[in-house]
């Protein structure tokens, strides 16, 4: 523990260096090191700033000269904005499981008397392989079932229950201890008549149950597949023999399928179970919801860029499909932005101008988007304005506030336009894709053209549906994106769509009274393919069917609509906006380093090119050349790469000695070289590269191949 603290402290100082060099001599002056400063406790309710040091975990930027208020403000901003998002995400996750919870509860309520059937009611919850998100699900189970069906739920994970005794111990402990909390533990070990029970004796549970009857004792196996099948069978047969006294019920979280699960149980065990299977909501649809609530949400203070989010989504699809990982990746992205970008203080709503430092303005003037803006201003001849922005801090501040306001307007704007674009599934791609596209490229003419083309081809009935939905969006907004109604702000559009809707309906009615079906010239069937046979040759000719008066009016209406959409839908991309660096985060690197570590790759690189990490002159090499100055283990690693799967240690030693030995100018003595060689080989073994081989004497087996 003490060692950990020492290390932790020195890590803190050195965590921004490329490599941590372990130097045992540091220990000597470790005695007068400062007291451990950091005690990370991120309790969200600890908003009061009485003990600033105790929760301030962000570091001052600008090379350490950023003042503390700004640092604190950034951290506050991060915590506040993330807590809002987190609340929405938790809400979604909890809602997603609700129907499953209800189903299971009603299944358990409907169970017939156990004594008559002699079978344990069991619910199989098909969760899919995202084992991590099951925790929340089962937590909800234990909350809901406790209330709804008067049950006591015990959650078992495969890690808790390595053998029968341990599993029973946990079950009994959880059932008896949880509600009576602490002191009564002693009582529970003793029955009412003072009898002591073994801690894996279900009779203790029975004794407890008699004093506090419940209608179900539910044992939930969170990751049933990971349990040993013999253990499961034992447990189930034990439960079924107690079934006439204790009303057991079982919950199984099944990752694959009930059939595969059943195949692993004994048949006699299967006879003790009867149950039903329940599905949970697919993680992809939950991800889509979380996407809307966390990334695309209108209030989100930070826009995440498309390349980052795309890589997140892709990883989700390819690798893990686990929702908690997705959420923590988002949180990490937020944290990175507020941690590393000093300009995020400007995102604060209350304008504390007095805490700003000269460095802030300098940093703004260095932003690429700001430079572009100034350059275009100069090109346009607005030299006065450009100069004032460059010279006058107060001007810059005004400009900055406008820019932030503008960004908020822009994000609202783009969401509203996207709502129109995604109406009625006219475009086949899903919302997240269109959104990310719009963030990176804006809503450009290609996208609009694609959209209007499909709008053009809509049948009149579909068009009314489309217009109705557009109007509905305008009137009601979209709570899942945090959009309020924007009909008032956009009266022209609203009026236009209303008019188009009523006209369409009127035209449709007119056409119907005349016995025609309404169509525009863009509808497919207006083109008639004619085949004429002239002189034994077939001629194909397109003919436009004649349009009635209603049809041509309808065509005009569609043209108007398309024009209107083309005018209103255009939107810039985020990167075109000035000072997008403050509110746009689109960097993959820190995320990848943290969430997808490559320990093997790093170790291999350190061994094959130690200079990358040590940065000392002695081990500077060109290519894969071996120089004697390299650390012994690095030399050994180079030699190791050239060997086969069995390594003769004597050969390795002679090869090593040939490199570091007498022929070189900084020659080592044989004894010293041998010591280094042994140490290097021991290190290789500790890192898992070689192990003792039983096949041949004096040989070691090669375990690791490069590049894996």
């Amino acid at each position: 523990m003490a060692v950990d603290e020492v290390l932790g402290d020195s890590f803190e100082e050195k965590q921004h260096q490329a490599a941590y060099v372990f130097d045992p001599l540091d220990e000597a002056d470790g005695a007068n090191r400062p007291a451990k400063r950091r005690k990370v406790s991120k309790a969200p309710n600890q908003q009061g700033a009485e003990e600033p040091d105790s929760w301030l975990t962000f570091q001052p930027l600008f090379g350490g000269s950023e003042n503390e208020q700004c640092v604190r403000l950034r951290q506050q901003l991060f915590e506040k904005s993330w807590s809002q998002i987190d609340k929405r995400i938790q809400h979604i996750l909890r809602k997603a499981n609700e129907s499953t919870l209800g189903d299971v509860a009603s299944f358990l309520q409907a169970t017939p008397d156990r004594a008559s059937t002699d079978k344990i009611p069991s619910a199989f919850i098909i969760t899919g392989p995202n084992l991590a998100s099951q925790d929340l699900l089962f937590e909800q189970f234990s909350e809901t079932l406790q209330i709804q069906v008067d049950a006591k739920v015990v959650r078992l994970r495969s890690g808790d229950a390595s053998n029968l005794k341990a599993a029973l111990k946990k079950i009994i402990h959880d059932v008896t201890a949880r509600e009576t909390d602490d002191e009564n533990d002693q009582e529970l070990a003793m029955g009412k008549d003072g009898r002591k029970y073994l801690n894996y004796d279900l009779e203790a549970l029975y004794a407890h149950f008699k004093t506090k009857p419940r209608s179900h004792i539910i044992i939930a196996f969170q990751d049933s597949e990971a349990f040993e099948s013999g253990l499961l069978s034992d447990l189930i047969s034990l439960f079924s023999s107690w079934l006439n006294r204790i009303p057991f019920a079982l919950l199984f979280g099944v990752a694959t399928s009930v059939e595969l699960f059943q195949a692993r149980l004994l048949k006699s065990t299967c006879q003790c179970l009867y149950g039903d299977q329940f599905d949970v909501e697919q993680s992809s649809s939950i991800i889509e919801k979380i996407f809307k609530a966390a990334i695309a949400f209108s209030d989100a203070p930070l826009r995440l860029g498309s390349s980052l989010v795309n890589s997140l989504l892709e990883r989700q699809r390819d690798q893990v499909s686990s929702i908690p990982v997705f959420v923590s990746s988002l949180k990490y992205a937020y944290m990175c932005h507020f941690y590393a970008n000093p300009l995020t203080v400007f995102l604060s709503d209350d304008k504390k101008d007095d805490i700003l430092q000269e460095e802030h303005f300098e940093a703004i003037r260095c932003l690429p988007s700001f430079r572009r803006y100034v350059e275009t201003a100069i090109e346009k001849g607005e030299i006065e304005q450009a100069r004032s922005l460059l010279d006058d801090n107060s001007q810059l501040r005004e400009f900055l506030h406008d820019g932030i306001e503008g960004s908020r307007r822009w994000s609202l704007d783009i969401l509203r336009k996207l709502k129109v674009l995604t109406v009625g599934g006219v475009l086949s791609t899903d919302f997240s894709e269109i959104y990310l596209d719009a963030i990176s490229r804006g809503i450009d003419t290609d996208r609009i053209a694609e959209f209007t083309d499909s709008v053009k081809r809509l049948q009149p009935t579909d068009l009314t549906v489309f217009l109705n939905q557009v109007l509905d969006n305008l009137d009601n907004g979209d709570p899942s994106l945090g959009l309020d109604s924007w009909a008032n702000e956009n009266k022209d559009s609203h009026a236009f769509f209303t008019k188009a809707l009523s006209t369409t309906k009127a035209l449709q009615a007119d056409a119907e009274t005349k016995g025609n079906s309404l169509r525009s010239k863009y509808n497919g069937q207006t083109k008639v393919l004619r085949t004429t046979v002239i002189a034994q040759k077939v001629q194909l000719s397109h003919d436009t069917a004649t349009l009635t008066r209603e049809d041509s009016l309808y065509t005009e209406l569609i043209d108007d609509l398309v024009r209107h959409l083309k005018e209103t839908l255009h939107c810039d991309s985020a990167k075109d906006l000035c000072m997008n660096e403050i509110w746009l985060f689109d960097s993959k690197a820190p995320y990848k380093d943290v969430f997808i570590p490559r320990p093997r790759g790093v170790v291999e690189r350190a061994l094959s090119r130690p200079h990358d990490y040590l940065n000392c002159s002695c081990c500077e090499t060109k290519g894969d050349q071996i120089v004697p100055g390299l650390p012994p283990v690095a030399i050994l690693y180079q030699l190791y790469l050239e060997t086969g799967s069995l390594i003769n240690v004597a050969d390795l030693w002679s090869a090593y000695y040939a490199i570091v030995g007498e022929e070189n100018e900084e020659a080592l003595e044989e004894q010293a070289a041998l010591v280094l060689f042994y140490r290097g080989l021991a290190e290789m073994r500790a890192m898992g590269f070689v192990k003792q081989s039983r096949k041949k004497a004096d040989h070691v087996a090669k375990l690791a191949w490069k590049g894996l």
Partner: protein
Amino acid sequence: MNEMDSIFELPDDLLATLIESFPCRDAQIRALATLLYPRAAPCRNLIIHGTEATGKTAITTGLLEALQSATDDGPPLKYAIVKSAECVTARHLFERTVGSVVDALEWEGTASVGRCETLAALTVELTRMLKENVEQEQENNSRRFVLVFDGIDRQREAPPTLLPALARLSEIIPNLTTVFILTTPTPSLLRVSSTPQLYFPPYTKTDFIAILSRPPYAPPPLPNTTPQETVDLWTRYAAAVHDALAKPASRSLPGLSRACAALWPRFTAPVAAGTHRAREFSKLLVAARAYFQDEGVLEPGIVLSGHSRDANTNGSVFAAASTTNGSNGHAPAKKGREETKATKDLATLLPPTARLLLVAAYLASHNAPRHDQTLFSTWHTGRRRRGGGGGGATGAIRASKRTKHRKIARKLLGPSAFVLERMVAIYAATRREWDSDGGEEGVVGVGVDGDVGMAISTLASLRLLVRVGGTGGGDTMDRGGKWRVGVGWEVIRGVGRSMGVEVEEWLIE
């Protein structure tokens, strides 16, 4: 005559009610009563044996309860039953024994009841309680205590001396009868001479029918029939089910009653529909022939709806199959169905990386390591040579040579263990070729990073990858560990096809 009565008598009225509630077991009940009743011929140790579901436990419990409750007019008898199935360890068994004896005697010296870790301690405890109890009630020397060990042969963590030691209890403690209920006794089980044994034979066909015609099993009257007709039909039907299913597949009463209950609605559906009358048994039998050829109903299904659905589809399959070739055709059909189901689930369920790893694990398990170079190396040709097609003349010759001594296809053999590093190497070698998305990214995308480790541990936790031996050897990230693939060929083929890979091409026979 009178004297005889006082020495040997059986409580006949008690036995009569017991025989009434357990039909076809009167011989056993009488024998058991003789061996337990204090005024008959009580014995010291008794072995009751027989296969499962032959009424051993139920009859013993019923008889002892009846005898105990009849102590008002007869000699006192008390008993305790210890179920080994509920005892996790031997110590658990001992403590449970002491506990139930305490309960049976209504013993007050609670302070003394505590730990009981060994057989010796058990002996001491029991001796103390039972002997004292006897001494207290000196006046009646004929009282007995019966201690029943139910299923003692299935006791978990039993020490080898358990049974002989328990058999000695009755030598130390007077008036104690120890009853062992077992499945099959071995000759030297208790290491004491001449223990009486009571055998509960399996029920015969007539027994089964007699039992099934009684209340808990007999069905409610059918529509369109009189109750008597229903009873007649049920009897004949039960006989038919017994001949068709119970005889070859399941001899136990619960199995038969379950099968009867499961088939009854389908069997009598024509009666309910009015197409046949209840008396036309042979017509009904012919109509329901398919069900009697299907042993699927005997298999326990753990999912309610799934089970009935399965049974339905199975039934229809067999209806079709039975017309062509009787009983031979259905086993493969069913197997195929189950596996395709599982395959589909797995292929859609797992993320792509996990699927690639699973296939790599299968290849590592089923190809010999010496073929790896041929399969995966791009050294000479620039493209990999695959096993199935396209082998040159030499390949064909070698293949034919090899088939001579290996008759069984490799994929039909069990998976062999491989080193994790090899599987990861196969994954890295095949990924670029198989993963259609990753292809464009080239070498950079092939890295083995934390996500691959996560996928491996996911597969391990689903037991699709199984760690072999060396449980002490580190965690899943230890590349030196030995592993084996946990799924079969059918599943892998499905998973491979879901990615557009024919796994067969990558296997060398």
